[in-house]
């Protein structure tokens, strides 16, 4: 029979999917038509065997509001209260939980985005202030998309100028300037899947050293190339969405890293949804990192650090986000994350030696109102 040799299986379905609006489209770019105001409160603690370290309590306010059909303003205000054995000092040093430090940081940013028929322009400024560190930043981002809105290109440029003064250290008025360049593509692959890939090149010079760390002396130039790719696929049969993210960072300090995250968003009846996630992170050590004891490997005039954040390690972060949609545009969410870092978990090689495991947890509650 002729009908059996002709059509390709499912040819009509493929043809029907080109009809406008027969299935909800994953759209790469659109103007937000609703605004929201969101309050988040983060409680962060980290610890090592036998020692509690940092505690951060961080309330934050985020607002997005369409000012017209083509103009959107968004902004945030964040306040950090930090206390504990900070700034993070040497991991294996028993005295690190000594007298402790209390510090506060307040930060805010505003971004204005204007949408045109085939492109948008966003301009943003940010300011952050704490006792020993002031940062000012500005950014501009241009996005352009294809007529069917299935592909979006993003071009971004940002610059920041920081000033560092540490009471306890002999550091006054040091500067650090960083320029960031971003290029990204977002592509709708099918009505249920979308992929986004961004490359950011960051070039900084100035004072990268930690003023609170004994003997810390870092290069005054840093170049970072970060490549982040996200893939989301919705599975209508399960009413859930798979979210994958992979990031590779090439760092001139030598602390190259890989990050992979897998998450699943599952809507449940009565407005509930859950998002379990698992993230793996692994990095090499900076070329000027030297493990315990302090001072080993130190050569006069050469870069040196004992900051464990620049050591070689691997880390796992399981997490869960539970959200509930309420009436009248209100929603609430709770996020829990647990982080554990060990030298031995580094992928494809040994981690730095002599470091205790490092653990942290995040509890974040959020309330959002859309309008």
């Amino acid at each position: 029979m002729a009908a059996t040799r002709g059509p390709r299986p499912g040819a009509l379905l493929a043809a029907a999917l080109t009809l406008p609006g027969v299935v909800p489209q994953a759209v790469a770019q659109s103007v937000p038509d609703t605004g929201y105001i969101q309050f988040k409160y983060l409680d962060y603690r980290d610890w090592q065997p036998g020692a509690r370290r940092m505690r951060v309590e961080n309330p934050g306010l985020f607002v997005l509001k369409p000012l017209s059909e083509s103009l959107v303003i968004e902004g945030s205000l964040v306040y950090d209260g930090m206390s504990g054995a900070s700034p993070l000092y040497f991991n294996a040093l028993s005295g690190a939980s000594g007298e402790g430090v209390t510090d506060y940081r307040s930060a805010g940013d505003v971004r204005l985005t204007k949408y045109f028929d085939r492109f948008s322009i966003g301009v943003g400024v940010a300011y952050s202030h704490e006792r020993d560190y002031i940062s000012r930043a500005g950014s501009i981002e241009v996005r352009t998309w294809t007529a069917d809105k299935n592909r979006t290109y993003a071009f971004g440029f940002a610059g920041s100028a920081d000033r560092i003064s540490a009471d306890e250290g002999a550091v006054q008025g040091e500067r650090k300037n960083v320029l960031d360049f971003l290029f990204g593509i977002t592509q709708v692959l099918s009505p249920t899947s979308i992929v986004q890939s961004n490359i950011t090149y960051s070039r900084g010079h100035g004072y990268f050293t930690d003023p609170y760390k004994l003997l810390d002396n870092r290069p005054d130039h840093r170049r970072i190339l970060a490549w982040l790719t996200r893939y989301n696929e919705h599975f209508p049969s399960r009413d859930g969405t798979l979210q994958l993210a992979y990031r590779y960072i090439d760092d001139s300090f030598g602390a190259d890293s890989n990050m992979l995250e897998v998450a699943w968003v599952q809507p449940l009846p009565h407005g509930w949804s859950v998002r379990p996630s698992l993230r793996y992170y692994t990095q090499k050590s900076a070329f000027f990192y030297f493990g315990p004891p302090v001072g080993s490997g130190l050569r006069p005039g050469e870069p040196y650090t004992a900051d464990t954040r620049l050591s070689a390690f691997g880390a796992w972060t399981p997490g869960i986000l539970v959200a509930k949609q309420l009436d009248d545009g209100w929603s609430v969410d709770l996020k829990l994350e647990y982080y554990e870092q060990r030298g031995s978990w580094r992928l494809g090689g040994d981690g730095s030696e002599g470091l205790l495991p490092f653990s942290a947890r995040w509890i974040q509650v959020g309330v959002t109102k859309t309008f």
Partner: protein
Amino acid sequence: MAATHEITVDADDAEQARDAVDAAIADVLRIEAKYSRYRDDSVTTAINRAAGLREVAIDAETAALLRYADHCHALSRGHFDITSGVLRRAWDFRSASPRVPDAAEVEALRALVGWEHVQWSGEAVRLELHGMEIDFGGIGKEYAADRAATILQERGIAHALVNLGGDLRAVGGQQGGAPWRIGIRHPRRPASAVVASVDVSDGAIATSGDAERYFEKDGRRYCHLLDACTGMPVSAWQAISVAAPLAVVAGSCSTIAMLLESEAAAFLESQAVAWLGVDANGTLHGTLAQ
């Protein structure tokens, strides 16, 4: 689209549900007004009036529907043809005293049937022969059902059933996880008689058959489904129901299968859809016949 239309929504927020349903109904009415061949101001009427005279500019939506009609025509090897409506001038199923037209009458009208006489692009369409007509009858209603489902979803409705004259599109099952249970009517028995029931959470079911718009003459039943290749009503099947991810696919598959007669099963299998057919003797066939 003179039939019963119904949208069922399972939601907690009554106001949100009402807004979503209003928007979905508005879009169904928009499509009806835009493509109805009975309306003086529709796109279909404008295209038909210009037949043999000039081309008519069309928008992206109309172009997409023409492209889909082109696929249906190719996959059915010409049996499904949106220009076949002129045959109704000979086959009048609405008449109080219907008659079987003679062969010459049908042949004369068949000269005006032919997708190959339609010149179309993304921007314009032209019917080459004076007297030609197109209609979106085999596609438009199901397309409207799919769009209604999308509009409901985009407005936060996770559980809905759109029923446009017996062509159904389900979204997300019922609240609490149960699927929508859809009964398939028996084509010869009263409306309440069901030959099968199908559970659908996300997907569509459409039926094409001879149960409505037909007449009987000398013991033979003549139904409204006319084969564009012969100009004659089809008779191999009483009805064919198709379950597919989209209503527009279910609808065109069931119609094409009816028109392909003895090749219906092979065609439906090639389209990877689930189906239930009632043949001329009343025997059930298809993947849903168990």
